[in-house]
């Protein structure tokens, strides 16, 4: 038996077990085993499996937001940033298809406390702001039409990427990369043949 050195260690172990077994099938014992400690020691650090899920998911969501904020401040052209943002969102949804709470949707989740719901709302607002910055930079650079409504555009893009409609299984039946390339094309050049900008790189698959 070893010792738990930090809360981060617990969160990492829980993330691993949830990812492998799914939240419903994961037992606290499995997480204790992953850490090489007794169940009792684990309860000293966290109160419940639900609390662990909360810590895991918030960390993952925060990572997604921080990553996008970094991308936004980078030097790449707006289209490239948009491409990466769409792909990252698809990969995220694909990886956390079963366990992720619905941060991106602001849906009511009875597992959350009010404070947690507020934290999620703030993170989601930051996330949407980061997307919006990409669009605004694109407008400033003359790449994106100044006539667009940035707020609605962000919500439209996010909606496509989150693909709740990917239910039923097996989901869209296409890889995250394929869906992302198609959606970048739709958003950037439009579906209409020969419309808008020439889109050499990512035509429809």
């Amino acid at each position: 038996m070893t010792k738990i050195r930090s809360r981060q260690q617990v969160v990492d172990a829980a993330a691993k077990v949830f990812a492998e077994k799914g939240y419903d099938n994961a037992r606290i014992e499995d997480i204790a085993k992953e850490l090489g400690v007794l169940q009792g020691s684990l309860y000293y650090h966290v109160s419940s499996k639900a609390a662990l899920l909360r810590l895991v998911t918030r960390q993952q969501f925060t990572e997604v937001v921080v990553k996008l904020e970094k991308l936004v401040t980078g030097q790449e052209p707006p289209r490239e940033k948009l491409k990466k943002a769409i792909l990252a969102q698809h990969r995220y949804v694909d990886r956390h298809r079963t366990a992720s709470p619905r941060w991106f949707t602001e849906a009511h989740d009875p597992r959350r406390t009010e404070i947690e719901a507020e934290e999620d709302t703030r993170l989601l607002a930051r996330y949407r702001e980061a997307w919006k910055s990409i669009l605004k930079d694109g407008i400033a650079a003359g790449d994106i039409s100044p006539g667009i409504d940035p707020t609605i555009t962000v919500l439209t893009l996010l909606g496509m990427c989150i693909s709740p409609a990917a239910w039923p299984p097996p989901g869209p039946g296409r890889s995250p990369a394929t869906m992302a390339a198609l959606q970048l094309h739709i958003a950037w050049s439009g579906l209409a043949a020969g419309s808008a900008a020439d889109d050499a790189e990512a035509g429809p698959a």
Partner: protein
Amino acid sequence: MTKIRSKQQLVDAAAKVFEEKGYAATRIEDIAAALGVMQGSLYYHVGSKAALHRLVVQHHLRQLTSGLEAIVESRAEPAEKLRLAILGHLVHVEQHLLEAPDWFSNPTRSTDITDEETAEHRELVLRYRAGWAAVVEEAITRGEIVAGTDATAVAISLISMCDYVSYWFRRDGDKRIEEVAALQHELVWSGIAVPRAG
């Protein structure tokens, strides 16, 4: 006290109550009261609040699909069909804002769901998806969308776009649902990029 004459009557009443109160706050008594029957008579027709809710979700999916299929079969141009499909979905969402986020969610999260119900929900979602794909296919056939475009992937993207509106749209927001629909149609049809010369 009156009598329940058909399942549809039950579904309509439940849909109305869920819409007004939200699923979590609705009690089976509320639905019985709306129908003017005793709770017991209600349980004779449907096993639980969750099962009733699933019937309501299916009812909305059927409505969305029949609206879409009428658009598909109409004589409108493909771009116009796409506009009407987006508008149709969004208007239906706006009318049922509390309930709409459940329509395309995974129904198997509900613990007492039967395989038959899962299969029915799946079938309805796929049929709706096929309707959207048909609009895209027609546009491809007529050269309005580039040949080789993956119509089903486009359909999934567009349904997702419309579905997500149910999570963020507010009736007291600064845009009406028709304006949102018009902006979304413009976005997916023409894109956001500045057109290049030549």
